[in-house]
C-alpha cells in the first residue's frame, strides 16, 4: 500500500512535467516489448526510479551518472509508460510506449461453427487474433493464411492480412461429410481447429414393406443419403405412417447403421408413407404381401 501511496504522490507532483515539460530522462519514445536497452543518467548520488505501466509498477534504486539497464523481461507489456526518477526533492520524468514485438508467437483462433452441413457457401468463419510471445496484441499488419482440409484431404486456402491485430476469413463447407481441419497460420505459428461437416437433408427416402410375424408388416428403408451421397447420420428420425379405414398408425424410428426399420399393423389396402423432417419419401399401398 505504501508504494502505491508514494507513486500516487509522485504522479501528482510530476503531472505538470508529464503534461508539458520535456524530461531529462532519455527513454526511447518507442520500446519493442522484450527489448534489452539502457537509459543514461546524469548527476551523482542515489536515486529511485519508478516506472508506471499497464497493470504494473517497477521500483528500482539507481546510481546517478550510470546507465539504467533493462532486461527483456522488465518491460514486456505493451502500452503507455511513465518513468519518474526521484532524488531528494528533484525528479525527472519521461514518457514512452512499449509496443508489441512484431514476431507472432501465439494465435487465438475462433472457428465457427464447429458443426455444419456440407455444401454451404461462406458458412465457415475463422477469426485470428495475433499475439507476440508476451501476449501483446500485434497491431501491425500480419500476413495470415487459412486452410480448410476436408476428410478426403481436399483443401481450400485463403490469405488475409490482419488489421489492428485481427484477421478473418469466410470459407465454404466441403461436399464430403466428416471431420475437417481448419488451420490458421501467421509466420511460423499455427493453430488448428476441427470442423465437423455433417450430411445435409436426406435427398430421397425409399422404403420397402414385407410381411412380418403375426399381423404385422415390416418396413425398412434403403440407406438414407443426402444429395451429395453422404450417409445421413445414425439417430436421425424417420417417420413411418400407415392409414387404414379411418385409423392411423405412426412410429418415429432412428436410423441405425444407415437404415430405419420398424413394424406396423398389417392391413391389406393400407397406405404407408415415410418422411424425415420436412423431406417426404415414397408411399406404398400395402397388399398384404401377396
Amino acid at each position, binding site marked *: 500500500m505504501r508504494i502505491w501511496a508514494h507513486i500516487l504522490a509522485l504522479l501528482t507532483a510530476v503531472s505538470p512535467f508529464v503534461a508539458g515539460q520535456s524530461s531529462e530522462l532519455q527513454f526511447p519514445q518507442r520500446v519493442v516489448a522484450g527489448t534489452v536497452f539502457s537509459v543514461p543518467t546524469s548527476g551523482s548520488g542515489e536515486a529511485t526510479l519508478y516506472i508506471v505501466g499497464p497493470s504494473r509498477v517497477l521500483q528500482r534504486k539507481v546510481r546517478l551518472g550510470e546507465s539504467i539497464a533493462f532486461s527483456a523481461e522488465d518491460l514486456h507489456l505493451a502500452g503507455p509508460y511513465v518513468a519518474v526518477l526521484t532524488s531528494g526533492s528533484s525528479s525527472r520524468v519521461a514518457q514512452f510506449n512499449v509496443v508489441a514485438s512484431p514476431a507472432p508467437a501465439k*494465435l*487465438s*483462433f*475462433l*472457428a*465457427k*461453427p*464447429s*458443426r*455444419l452441413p456440407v455444401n454451404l457457401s461462406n458458412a465457415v468463419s475463422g477469426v485470428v*487474433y495475433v499475439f507476440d510471445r508476451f501476449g501483446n496484441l500485434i497491431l501491425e499488419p500480419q500476413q495470415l493464411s487459412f486452410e480448410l482440409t476436408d476428410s478426403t484431404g481436399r483443401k481450400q486456402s485463403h490469405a488475409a492480412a490482419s488489421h489492428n491485430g485481427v484477421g478473418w476469413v469466410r470459407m465454404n463447407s466441403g461436399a464430403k461429410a466428416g471431420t475437417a481441419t481448419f488451420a490458421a497460420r501467421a509466420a511460423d505459428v499455427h*493453430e488448428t*481447429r*476441427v470442423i465437423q461437416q*455433417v*450430411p445435409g*437433408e*436426406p435427398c430421397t427416402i425409399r422404403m420397402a414393406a414385407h410381411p412380418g410375424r403375426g399381423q404385422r408388416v415390416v418396413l425398412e428403408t434403403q440407406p438414407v443419403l443426402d444429395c451429395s451421397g453422404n450417409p445421413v*447420420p*445414425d*439417430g*436421425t*428420425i*424417420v417417420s413411418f405412417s400407415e392409414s387404414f379405414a*379411418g*385409423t*392411423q*398408425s*405412426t*412410429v*418415429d*424410428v*432412428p436410423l*441405425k*447403421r444407415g437404415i430405419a426399420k*420398424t*413394424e*406396423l*399393423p398389417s392391413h391389406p389396402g393400407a397406405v404407408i408413407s415415410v418422411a*424425415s*423432417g*420436412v423431406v417426404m419419401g415414397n408411399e406404398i399401398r400395402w397388399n398384404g404381401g401377396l
Partner: protein
Amino acid sequence: MSGRLLALLLALATIALIVAGTLWPGASGLGAADAQARLMGSASGPQGTVHDLLQRIAGHDWSAAYNSLANKSEFSEAEFTRDLTGNYGSLRTYASLAGYDIQPLRASSDEAQVKAILRWASVVGTFQDTRDLRVVKSGERWQVVWPVVKEAKVPPQVIPVNYLRWDVIYRGAEDDWGAQDVEAPHVRIVAMHPVDRGGGVVILGEVLNEDVVPAFVTVKASLLNGKGVALANEDSFDKISHILLPKQVSPFRIDFSGVRLSQVDSVRIQPSATLVAASADPVIGIESQKLIPVPDSSLTGELVNQSGQIVNVAHVIGTFYDNSGQIVWVADGYPNRALLPETPVRFSIPLPADVSGKVSNYRVVATTYSSSHFQ
C-alpha cells in the same frame, strides 16, 4: 313471538349439527364427489356397497377391499392391488384416488350394475378410470364383482438392442478463450398459429430439430402490441416434447391468459436448444389412432413399446390440422400404465368439442420417461 321461536329453533338445529359433526366426522375426505356418492345409496344397497369399496381403495386398505369382493377367488390380492396401483413405476403407482362418481345403471333384487368413475390425482393432473361394476347379493349382503384388469407381464428374457446414444464433452474452464466449444443444436419453428380461445391467446406450432445431434428444446413467446411492447411472456412448459432427436418434429402449445388476440400486433417466438446427452431408444409405435366424435371428442390409440426397455411414464402430444393444413389445436395425454415391450397400452387425448369438427388430419408424438434414465 313466532319469529323468536324460529330463531330459537335455528339456533338449536345449528348446535345439534355442530355436535353431530364433531362426534361423527366424515369418514372419507374425498370431497364433493364423495358426498354426492354417499347420497346415492345406503350402505346396505348396491351403491352403498360400491361406495364402501371405493372408500377402502381411497384409504389404501387393499386387504379389506379385496376381502369384500364377490369374485376374489378369480385373482390374488396382489393382482387386485396391481390393477389399482399399477406396476413398474407407472403414473398410476404414484396416484391417489381423489374422488369418484357412482352411477346406477340397472338393478334387480339380487343383482345391480353400477358405473364407477374414479378420478386419480397424479403429478401431471387427474386421470379417470371408469369401471362397470356388477354388484351381487349373496345372502343378506351385497358384494362387488371387480372387473380386474390384469397387468401384462413380460416373461424374463434378454432383448438385444443396437443401442444408440449421444454423449457430450463440453469445453473446460481452463481452455483458452479462443478454443472451440460444441455447437448448440439448430432448431427451427416450422409452423405457428395464434388463436383466441377461452379469454386468452393460445400459440400453436411445431418445432423441428434440423441438426444431427439431439436437442433439449424450449419455446418462449412474447405477445407484442402495436408499439412493440410485450403484453405477456410465456413458454411451452409441458405442451412440447422437450428432447428432439435429429430431424424430429414436436408440436408446442403456449397458453396466455387475460390477453385478447385483438390486442396483439405481433408475436415473437424464441426457440432455444441445448445440446444434451440422449438416447435414440426406446422406439414407440403409436397405433390404431382414431378420432372419436362429440360428445366424447378425443383421439384414441395404442402405444406399443418396440424396444426392450420398460417405459414407466409416456406422454403423448397430438397436433390437429384443418383441411388446409393449418394447426387448429395441440393437446396431450398421459397413459397411466407402464409400457412393457411389445405390449399395447391405450391412450386418449381429449379434444375440445368445437375443435373436433374442424380436424381433418392429425399427428401424434410420444415422449417417454424411464426410471433408468430420462429420454
